[in-house]
């Protein structure tokens, strides 16, 4: 194997475009490892690690594009480099902005000058470069979806305080999803308009509840994402509160749904105080905080739960169902009845899926692309099964020493940084998840593998096309080893999503997966199979 690199000075592409390009090159015959990255110090270090750095690439600057190819011989490597150049050139002519012809703006400031009626900025540049355009956007009066991670907490607080003082949303950092005026920003689903307003400190959480609302025949006014850290003690829930206030004041919003991963107790208290300011029925899905309500930190929360317009939900399935019912003016008692009925069906299904398993197959393995969905599953498994191991566990005692080696019941959040450094997110690229899937299929103690499939704008154009065959292959392999393997999944998506939920579901079913109507349902079903 030889390594060849090609450096293209002054050419810049975003990280996702480059990684998808690298993947295409990697599919060429005779080509092994491929990396196509900008020459930042961090990326050069990754190249060193991968054995792909050559003297030519060593002097690359952050403004230079580095194509590094490992191939069986020099001729193959050269051909791969040429192919890369062609693909880059094709990308360049295709990637023209709506103001074609003129020079493209190089900064957010000059972009706003070119498009003066702009009212939203979507920022997804690498973290160290993200705060500056966020400031430029706010100063120009734009609302911001700050998708980027690794923005300092000091910057986050300063940005959010400014935004709040100027009547603007600063959604993020690390906010993957927002749906404003029916338009999906970032990773978002195509959801019908309706009377439910959502504010969420959890990206895939917002996706899940909005998709479930769509499935229930309801719809949303707005889906405001705040970024996960918003509800921490230091940030103090600034955007969560602004979002809540905005929805309370919005005449089109009749029901409010709040989704949050663990807020600090002080923030939870602020949320409740704000809920009290409005008559609008509000559903609160506070995820892990639900379990903490009894303890002293959250006692304030506990004592406030008697607000007449407030309902709490254990999980996202329940939250969406409650919100939909409230939107329809239905009695919420029906919701609990319906959920109980669904659980009975899931129990029956679990029984039939348990039968073909052998006595060794006692464990669940969850492979998640959405952090909130992973957490939701872990809470359900903890309640049903006890200890759940993870790379991002609920209980630190159950942190996996090696994320590549699952133990007993395990849920992996593949969106965590250890997996995404240098690769595209699992919602865009299935390679890593498929590797994990095969690894779990080889483990004779596994009875069920659980996946979340997230559709929508920004996500992989056809997850079933890649995951489907992988699922079929995994089950077939297990079959050859004399084992029945359950694969349970849920599809967070709608009919209007580019991938079309129905078509995806059909393809997954054909591959042998069992599809549950929600992530929470999938987690329950899986837990009852092995219980």
């Amino acid at each position: 194997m030889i390594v060849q690199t090609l450096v293209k000075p002054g050419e810049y592409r975003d990280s996702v475009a480059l990684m998808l390009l690298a993947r295409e090159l990697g599919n060429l015959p005779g080509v092994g490892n491929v990396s196509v990255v900008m020459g930042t110090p961090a990326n050069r270090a990754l190249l060193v690690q991968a054995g792909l750095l050559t003297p030519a690439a060593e002097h690359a600057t952050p403004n230079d594009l580095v194509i590094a190819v490992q191939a069986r011989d020099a001729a193959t490597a050269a051909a791969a480099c040429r192919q890369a150049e062609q693909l880059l050139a094709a990308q360049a002519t295709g990637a023209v902005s709506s103001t074609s012809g003129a020079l493209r703006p190089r900064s957010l400031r000059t972009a706003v000058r070119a498009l003066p009626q702009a009212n939203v900025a979507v920022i997804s540049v690498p973290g160290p470069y993200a705060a500056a355009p966020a400031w430029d956007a706010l100063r120009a009066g734009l609302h911001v979806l700050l998708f980027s991670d690794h923005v300092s907490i000091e910057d986050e607080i300063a940005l959010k305080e400014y935004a709040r003082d100027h009547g603007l949303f600063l959604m993020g950092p690390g906010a993957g999803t927002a749906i404003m005026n029916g338009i999906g920003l970032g990773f978002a689903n195509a959801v019908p308009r309706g009377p439910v307003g959502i504010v969420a400190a959890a990206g895939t959480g917002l996706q899940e509840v909005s998709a479930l609302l769509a499935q229930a025949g309801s719809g949303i006014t707005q889906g405001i994402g705040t970024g996960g850290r918003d509800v921490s003690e230091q940030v103090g829930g600034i955007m969560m509160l602004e979002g809540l206030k905005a929805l309370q004041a919005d005449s089109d919003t009749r029901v409010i749904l709040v989704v949050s991963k663990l807020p600090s107790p002080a923030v939870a208290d602020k949320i409740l105080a704000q809920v009290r300011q409005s008559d609008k029925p509000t559903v609160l899905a506070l995820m892990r905080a639900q379990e903490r309500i009894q303890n002293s930190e959250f006692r304030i929360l506990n004592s406030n739960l008697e607000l007449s317009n407030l309902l709490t939900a254990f999980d996202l399935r329940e939250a969406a169902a409650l919100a939909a019912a409230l939107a329809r003016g239905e009695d919420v008692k029906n919701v609990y009845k319906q959920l109980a009925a669904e659980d009975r069906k899931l129990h029956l299904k679990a029984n039939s899926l348990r039968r073909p398993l052998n006595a060794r197959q006692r464990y669940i393995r969850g492979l998640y692309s959405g952090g909130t969905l992973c957490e939701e599953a872990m809470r359900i498994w903890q309640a049903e099964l006890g200890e759940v191991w993870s790379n991002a566990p609920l209980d630190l005692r159950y942190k996996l020493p090696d994320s590549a080696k699952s133990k007993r019941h395990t849920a992996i959040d593949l969106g965590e940084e250890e997996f995404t450094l240098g690769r595209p997110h699992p919602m865009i690229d299935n390679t890593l998840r498929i590797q994990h899937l095969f690894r779990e299929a080889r483990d004779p103690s596994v009875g069920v593998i659980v996946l979340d499939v997230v559709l929508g704008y920004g996500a992989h154009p056809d997850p079933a096309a890649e995951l489907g065959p992988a699922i079929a292959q995994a089950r077939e392999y297990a079959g050859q080893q004399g084992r029945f393997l359950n694969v349970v999944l849920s599809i967070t998506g709608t009919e209007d999503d580019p991938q079309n939920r129905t078509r995806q579901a059909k393809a997954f079913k054909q591959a042998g997966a069992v599809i549950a109507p929600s992530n929470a349902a999938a987690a329950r079903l899986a837990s009852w199979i092995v219980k």
Partner: protein
Amino acid sequence: MDLFGKPLTVVNIGLQIFSDSLRAQQVEVIDVDFRPSPYDAPRLTHTRHGIDIEAANTEAVRRIASGKAILTGLGIAREVIPGMGERMILHAGPPITWDRMCGPVRGAIIGACLYEGWAKTPEEAIDLAASGEITFEPCHHHHAVGPMAGIVSPSMPVWIIENPPFGNRAFCTQNEGLGKVLRFGAFAPEVIERLEWMERVLYPTLDRAVRSLPGGIDIKNLIAQALYMGDECHNRNKAGTSLFLRAIGPALARTCADGETLARVISFIDANDHFFLNLSMPAGKALSEPAEGIAGSTIVTTMARNGTDFGIRVAGLPGRWFTAPAGRVKGLYFPGFTEADANLDMGDSTITETAGFGGMAMAGAPAIVKFVGGSPQDALDATLEMYEICASEHDSFLMPALNFRGTPLGIDIRRVVETGISPRLNTGIASKEPGIGQVGAGLLRAPIECFVAAFEAMREA
């Protein structure tokens, strides 16, 4: 919330998949062509002492934009230039010692020594210059500017440009013409004779004419008009020169009693397409100076070259030069000349870009590409690119080609370092041999190291 219910119009900076998704939803979206800075460049919003940089820059730009540049007369350097010593020679660019000076600058100093009568031969002049008896200082240290070598000696007449709203003045010699002239390092007898004619005849004739006009001549206004006519007033000054002749013509005719002198002076101006440069430059200087010393401002107040070094100064770091080696100009050469004949970039004429015209206004001067290379679209793009690094836009210098948009004004060193875009300059190219003259014209960028160094200094300020 003012966003609810309104159509979304989006700026996307980062992953292309997000703007693609928005287009799929029929949303109007513009993509930012983002590139990471090659430098360690955190966004500076405040100085270490807590001064708001944006506010300081707003003030700097306000001063530059609201100034005036009125030609009120001429004067002799030793009499009107503050601090002009008896054995002092001013030069273009940042401070430099004789031993480091390039050929054309030395040649011009030799010529000045001969003109002043300090030496009888070039050899004597060289000895004198090397001896330390002459003090060499930047024009910029004396409210003056000079094109190319930019040499000003005590007896030379200078234009006097006044900026009444701020009370400052700026000075520059008259442009001698093209080819074998002092500013390109020539010191042959005819050069000295011409300088003497300019002192004896040109100066008093022009001075009488200008002083006969009660309001003087508004050079800023002439620049604005010239920008409408295809000049950018740095490398193209034909329209400016013509407008100036119109402005001063009647006064010349009335105040110059001798018809032959009048004819000679008019011909002298007419024969030199760059005559106006020596007015646009001190105008730029007069307009920029009031911004010097504004605490916390990252706006560039000076860009200047001495043929060896390129230097900049920044409003919030008064008195400090940030230098780097002067660059090679890439351009088109006059017949018979090549890059091998070229001197490095030279002159104070980059005061024009600093003040918001010159290279900043290339979008209005497409004919310039005939001299510097490229296409008219390149001229447009050159200006468009400069908006990326400037804090504001002029309200007096407008470009019809860009829908009467104001020129980029106020180079912000933070934006230079953030974007990696340094100011685009178009300039004449001098022969490295003294006395040959201009050998071509072309483009180059200001060395970015100057801005990086200034940025680092600003972080400590």
